[in-house]
């Protein structure tokens, strides 16, 4: 270990330190009022550190650390910033939820530990650090899901624990097979050894790919590995649901991209079979997610299924990336990779607005049944309008950011000659409109129940309106986001 190693993972180290400080703080000070400012200042500091690193890094080079097992590059730094932003957001919308809780500092530090795991995950280049980062991501979430400690929440926590244990086991088994064949844990080493020897068509390798993808499928809640999502989303506290829907999914996609590219840089023919497996996942996710979402009456379960279907759309981008690379080389895949990042950005932005509004509404009406949302437009036009725009963005209609991200991903898929996949995606867009707009209808058409009132403070209002404006602005001028997504993937390609 030398200074460069520490330099490379300084954001992660700072996050861990912040998390520990919070627990210590709780131990020594009875005053809880300073806790939130401390969290915010700490996160801001780490965010600035990331920005500082980003400014100082050479945009075409990456810094390897710990004998190539971790890496510092623009891709990782972007996701560091992204996860810090998401944590910031989660803590922001938790304020009503956490007010009555006694374990405030544990709540905050668990979120921060999990985010640290994600930050490590997106910068790992090797199986073991990848696995450890993954566990660091998942285990705090288990505790957070069960944080309410009532029967529903505990059930969700246990369910998540068991199923994520199984998926980790699958991943680990896949890794063991790889290690057994190659004797190395570094992604590019493994790719190198496999492409040089005669085992590249071995059935066991295919088996290990399937195991790895199953593990991934679980993390990004792609069908048929989605079974946990509805129950866990439903049982978890609302802020944690949003953490699962945004950060957890994005982390999975990010490391998938990193692995794909580190293999592709060695040999572009190695993971051709992945695209076929992923196509199955993508189609299943889109159709299952959308069709089951139609029947949902609980907003959290509906969000769960809708996020499953969005996984399917993101996978379309990943598949087109794989196809383009295996047909015409790594350098042509920039557009496809950036379309995935752009979709992630649009999806996250929309989900930020979705979860803020839904959290405010469910807190006020003490129910997460969609039918109880009736007539919100009369009580709070701002929330109703935001939710409407969010739904339009989730469907992918103009003038919202969701429209451009969908069009962009379809454009990438057409370039990869996946015309029929685009058609399936379009069919799903039409299906999804049905249940998204049903919510809009309930918001606007039905009469509110008598004693309904919605209170939310100035900060929340400001946040809701700013997300609303952003969804709208990026729906008309998407260029900054597209530019950003090109910058992010540039180093991978």
């Amino acid at each position: 270990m030398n200074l460069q190693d520490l330099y490379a993972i300084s954001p992660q180290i700072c996050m861990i330190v912040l998390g520990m400080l919070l627990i210590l703080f709780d131990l020594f000070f009875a005053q809880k009022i300073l806790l939130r400012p401390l969290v915010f200042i700490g996160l801001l500091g780490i965010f600035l550190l990331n920005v500082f690193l980003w400014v100082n890094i050479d945009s075409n080079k990456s810094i390897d650390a710990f004998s190539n097992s971790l890496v510092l590059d623009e891709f990782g730094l972007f996701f560091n910033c992204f996860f810090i932003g998401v944590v910031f957001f989660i803590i922001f919308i938790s304020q009503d939820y956490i007010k009555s809780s006694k374990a405030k500092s544990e709540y905050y530090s668990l979120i921060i530990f999990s985010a640290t795991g994600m930050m490590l995950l997106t910068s790992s280049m090797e199986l073991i650090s990848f696995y450890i980062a993954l566990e660091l991501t998942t285990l705090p979430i288990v505790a957070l899901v069960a944080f309410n400690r009532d029967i529903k929440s505990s059930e969700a926590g246990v369910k998540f624990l068991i199923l994520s244990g199984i998926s980790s086991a699958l991943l680990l088994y896949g890794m063991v097979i790889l290690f057994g064949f190659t004797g190395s844990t570094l992604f590019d080493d493994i790719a190198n050894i496999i492409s040089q020897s005669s085992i590249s068509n071995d059935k066991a390798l295919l088996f290990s790919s399937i195991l790895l993808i199953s593990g991934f499928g679980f993390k990004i809640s792609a069908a048929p590995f989605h079974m946990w999502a509805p129950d866990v989303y439903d049982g978890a506290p609302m802020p944690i649901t949003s953490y699962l829907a945004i950060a957890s999914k994005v982390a999975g996609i990010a490391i998938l991209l990193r692995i794909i590219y580190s293999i592709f840089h060695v040999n572009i023919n190695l993971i051709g079979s992945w695209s076929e497996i992923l196509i199955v996942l993508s189609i299943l996710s889109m159709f299952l997610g959308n069709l089951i979402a139609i029947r949902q009456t609980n907003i959290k379960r509906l969000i769960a299924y809708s996020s499953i279907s969005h996984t399917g759309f993101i996978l379309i981008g990943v598949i087109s990336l794989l196809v383009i690379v295996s047909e015409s080389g790594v350098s042509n895949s920039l557009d496809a990779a950036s379309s995935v990042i752009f979709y992630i950005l649009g999806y996250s932005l929309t989900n930020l607005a979705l979860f803020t509004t839904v959290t405010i509404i469910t807190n006020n009406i003490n129910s997460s049944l969609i039918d109880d949302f009736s007539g919100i437009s009369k009580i709070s036009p701002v929330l109703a309008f935001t939710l409407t725009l969010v739904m339009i963005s989730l469907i992918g209609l103009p003038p919202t950011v969701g429209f451009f991200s969908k069009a962009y991903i379809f454009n990438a898929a057409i370039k990869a000659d996946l015309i029929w996949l685009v058609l399936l995606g379009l069919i799903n867009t039409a299906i999804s409109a049905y249940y998204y707009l049903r919510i809009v209808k309930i918001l606007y058409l039905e009469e509110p129940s008598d004693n309904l009132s919605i209170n939310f403070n100035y900060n929340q209002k400001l946040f809701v309106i700013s997300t609303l404006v952003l969804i709208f602005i990026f729906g008309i001028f998407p260029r900054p986001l597209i530019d950003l997504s090109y910058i992010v993937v540039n180093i991978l390609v």
Partner: protein
Amino acid sequence: MAFNGLISATVFIPTLGALVIAVLLKKNSHVFLFARFVALLNLILSALVLFSYQISESTDKFKLVDKYEHWIPFDSFKVQYYLGVDGFSAPLILLTGLLTAVAIFSSKNITHKIKQYFICLLLLETAVMGVFSSLDLFLFFIFWELELIPMFFLIMVWGSGRKNYSAMKFLIFTLISGALILFGILMLFASTKTFDITLLPSLIKEESLLIPMSIMFFVFFIAFSIKLPVWPLHTWLPDAHTDAPTAGSVMLAGVLIKMAGYGLIRICIGLFPESVSEYSFIIVILAVINVIYGAVITMRQTDMKRLIAFSSVSHMGFVLLGVAAFSGSYDDKVTGLVGASLQMFTHGTITGLLFLLIGYIYEKTHTRYIPHMGGLVHQMPRLSVALTIAGVAALGLPGTSGFISEIIIFIGAFPVFSWFTAIAVFGVVLTSAYILWMIQRIMYGPKLDRFEKTLDASVYEMIPVILLIISILFVGLYPSFITGIFKNGIIQIIG
């Protein structure tokens, strides 16, 4: 980058007006006044568009061009902000301005959610104007989808009857048509690397397309057929028209379904002329089915609004017939397409007027069920005169605009498909039957006691009616003004 500004203003002033209504205005009476002001302003602007198009001396294909190339500048996805008009779109923009003004002026009895109502109408105007003036396919598509949300809400919130069902049906049909268009334009982009309508015709060649041109043609053709609507994809239209509020029906019949006709000529004929000629046989069969089937179904309707809605199906069949003439000689092509575009314009004014009048009658008698009506001429002389004029225009009486457009279509289509045109002409007979029968059942006959206290339309209510009647008679008596403009546009599209 070229910037004239007039067309951008015409497209976006309604949005601006909607924003002002949303944010600044508090009192309902102000909302009414301001919405009318914006509608009137835009009517003047859209007339100005047509006028500046006429006097413009530039020899470019498209005039009044507003262009900004670097909206989304990536090579992999290059979208421009590119608006402009030619002879084909300029009259349709005027039509949109006219009918939105009519819709807004006629909605004075809206009682709930007044702000949102006018916001929806104004956004709808932006979307339709945008569709008619976009010269970039992606921009075209954005406006095309933008139309969906306001119309959906207009039906669902201010509609009547089975409004939820109709709104959902409208939504799903439109989304499918939108999905097909998106698919089509992305495929075109993948083959030609541009969304620019002015460049595409020269770039599209059979060998450069990813999938065969005929399939591309059918993708767009089906998408536009849903919106036009063409049998058997027309089933959303009667429901949506019937359950929409009056202004919604006026917009829907007057301009929204014209977007499909516009797309058919601008995109299908403009980009895939060979395929249109090749498959004109299918188009003409569909056209005849539309005309005859639509007319026969219309005969059986007992709900006034539904009756007019089905008559739109029949009238849109004539547009399709004009398009089918594309497989003929050059002169037949031009005549058929000029007829088709004129039919779009006249159908907009005539059916807009019919829906408006029927909305008035419904408001005053509280029924749309034709067998319950009769003898209304005694109580509402003004409305019955107007309805008679609109009716005879719809059935194509010489002197009205309906006659001109239908005769031009027949002249264009007859040399190409004599027998089919002959059958379609028979549709005019059916039209006369159902229109005259409807007027007779509603307006004439013995005076009924239950309508004793029913009032006639007020002078204010007659303003939009008279405006539309003037436009119908003007086109009917002096058609060469507007056919000349359409002809310029059509000749350029055919090339």
